[in-house]
């Protein structure tokens, strides 16, 4: 095989892997939008908050320590030296469920039957408030997140592919970050679990009923509020997974909330209401932007294409299929 072809395959593979990371964020958006019609602008901050909380629990950090010390003249920083990863993840999940409950109580409950734009504005407010609370609770230092997921280039793949190039060519194997492989495995597991949950459990069926028709679901005795809490909690859990993956890659810091921007073109492409759409959309965006950066950018000798090229792809797609690849077709009856 020629080195050019191998490089092309490597770019596509890396694009797919990056796409999975975007899909992880997009999944949270889709779940909430499907169940409640709310475009949750705070999803990126959810991921940040979950990752901050996880590191906080892992390292035994006292929440609001700075505030407490400032107010009472104390000097509290850490409760304990470390906590096992499993326990820290479990506690973070409980925190995200509690957060979903608080959001339902303080925000959503009061906005039932409001226009979608009002709910959207509420989530913008929620994003800023949660970012502020996260800062107060855990501080804004860069935090190292390690839950034992391996990262770095795959030596196995490098060694397995080094011989594929034509003899005498200067090629040293294909590159893939092991962390991204793990993200793919986890994303697949998440999607299968979500599919099984929604198909084969009573709560899952109730969730689908609410997603299909709020009024009809209410008429058969499904509690809209419990379903909302549940769906926001699941979305919080997905945000935690996304936060772990992204946080492991770059350290946990406030720029993590901006990963939401990576999910927007994915949603436009895949549709706001489809879980497979979030996955396929992510993969397409991931591959598209990497190919654009390396091949179009390389040809014209320009760089930094990958951020905006994803949006170009999404906009082009909007022209032909506004509801996205798998989104529900919009039919307005007059």
């Amino acid at each position, binding site marked *: 095989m020629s080195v050019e072809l191998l490089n092309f395959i490597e770019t596509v593979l890396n694009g797919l892997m990056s796409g999975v990371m975007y899909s992880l964020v997009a999944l949270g958006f889709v779940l909430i939008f499907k169940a409640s019609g709310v475009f949750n602008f705070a999803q990126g901050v959810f991921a940040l908050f979950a990752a901050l909380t996880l590191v906080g629990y892992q390292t035994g950090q006292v929440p609001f320590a700075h505030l407490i010390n400032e107010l009472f003249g104390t000097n509290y920083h850490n409760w304990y030296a470390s906590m096992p990863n499993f326990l820290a993840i479990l506690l973070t999940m409980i925190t995200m469920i509690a957060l979903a409950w608080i959001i339902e109580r303080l925000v959503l409950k009061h906005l039932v039957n409001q226009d979608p734009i009002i709910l959207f504005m509420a989530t913008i407010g929620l994003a800023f408030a949660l970012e502020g609370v996260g*800062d107060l609770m855990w501080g804004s230092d860069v935090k190292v997140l390690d839950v034992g997921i391996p990262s770095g280039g795959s030596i196995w793949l490098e060694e397995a592919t080094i011989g594929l190039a034509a003899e005498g060519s200067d090629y040293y194997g294909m590159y893939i970050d092991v962390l991204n492989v793990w993200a793919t495995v986890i994303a697949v597991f998440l999607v299968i679990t979500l599919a099984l949950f929604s198909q084969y459990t009573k709560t899952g069926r109730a969730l689908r009923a609410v997603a299909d028709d709020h009024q009809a679901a209410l008429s058969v005795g499904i509690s809209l509020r419990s379903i909302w809490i549940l769906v926001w909690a699941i979305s919080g859990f997905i945000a935690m997974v996304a936060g772990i993956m992204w946080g492991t890659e770059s350290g946990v810091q406030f720029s993590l909330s901006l990963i939401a921007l990576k999910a927007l073109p994915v949603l436009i492409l895949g549709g706001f209401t489809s879980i497979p759409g979030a996955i396929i959309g992510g993969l397409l965006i991931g591959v598209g932007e990497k190919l654009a950066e390396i091949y179009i950018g390389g040809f014209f000798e320009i760089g930094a294409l990958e951020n905006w090229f994803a949006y170009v792809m999404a906009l082009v797609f909007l022209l032909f299929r506004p509801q996205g690849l798998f989104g529900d077709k919009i039919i307005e009856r007059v």
Partner: protein
Amino acid sequence: MRIKQLLIGMTASVIAVSSYVEMAIADLKFPMLVYRTGAYAPNGIPNADGFVDYYKMINARDGGIGGEKILHPECETGYKTQVGVECYEKNKKDAMVFQPMSTGITYQLIPKATADGVTVYSTGYGRTSAANGKVFKWVFNAPVTYWDGASIAVRHILKNNFGNIKGKKIALVYHNSAYGKEPIRTLQELSKKHGFKLMLLPVDHPGQEQKATWLKIRKARPDNVLMWGWGVMNQVAIKSAASIKFPMDKFIGIWWSGSENDVLPAGQGAHGYKSLTFNAPGTNYQVHADIKKYVHDKGEASGDGSHFGTVLYNRGLFQAMVQVEAATVAQKIHGTSKITPAMYRDGFENVNLSAKRLEELGFKDFAPPFKITCENHGGSGLAAVQQWDAKAKKWNMITEYMYGDSSVVQKLIAEDSSKYAAEQKITERCG
């Protein structure tokens, strides 16, 4: 009776307010443009803490500068240029100096501050050609500029290649902003001079996703990578370099890509990464002992005090020290402690931080000595290379402080500043 009491109360209030205003004018106002929130907060906070702790220490230990207390109101910019300009407008009255902490904001403030008669000090960042004091009367960027930095990095690479880098490939991974683009012109000139091939790799804000950039590096296999990054871009770049097994001792960041924040998330992978620096890390300096005694031990530390001695905290101390020294010099020149912004600028232009003076100020061996003159607002142009030891979790200085390539840098400064002078119709001074 009630009316009488009311009148007395009102009179007392008016007297109190007017005496406060009088006191405020007599004090020296050093507004701070900070970013304690947002994507760049992890870097903004330690730097701002360094400033605040130094000002507090001077107020507590010396009673201020020449008896005048330092006022240091903060304005949050979030590293956003437009917000930075608004902060400047809000705080410019009676301000001695602005430290924008962003090259984008600095570019916007240069014409404004020049028209308003306010000093702008961009320590080792901002518009490089502002080093030419003949054109940029109100702007200072000592002790070293980005163009010096670019040529110092190339000098270090030259040294490691026995003086010959002809045919070598050097990649520049840069923040796709005014800041990141600053060294390109110099590197292009140096590439012509030394015969190396320059690869330019921009990374968009904030730099969370750089996979394509590092795939390009993996394919092109440059001999060295230079980085002009900030915030999360640094952490992701260092981690990505480690992940593709790029030799870390051939990866050199500018001084804003060389803090503990940048290397810690990459763990052992960051071992051997290099960056330039113009100040030392650590707490073994007199200034730290004084801050501990007069500020931290009294529970007055800015933030939670956890950044004490880190690279960016120490840089904040250094920046604040230069600003305070400029006021001290201005007071001496004009024979009054109650200096005006114009007097302050005169002081800045006569700052002479010799080794002896640095020692007197508690900064012995903390940074190389430098002097500011009417012609030279860029200082000594000295920087050293530090290397990260991931096991010990500390930076080690591995070179002496070095000069850049003045034959290239000075020519570019002259060209760029003349262009600016022509555009703005500025007559060169210092005659």
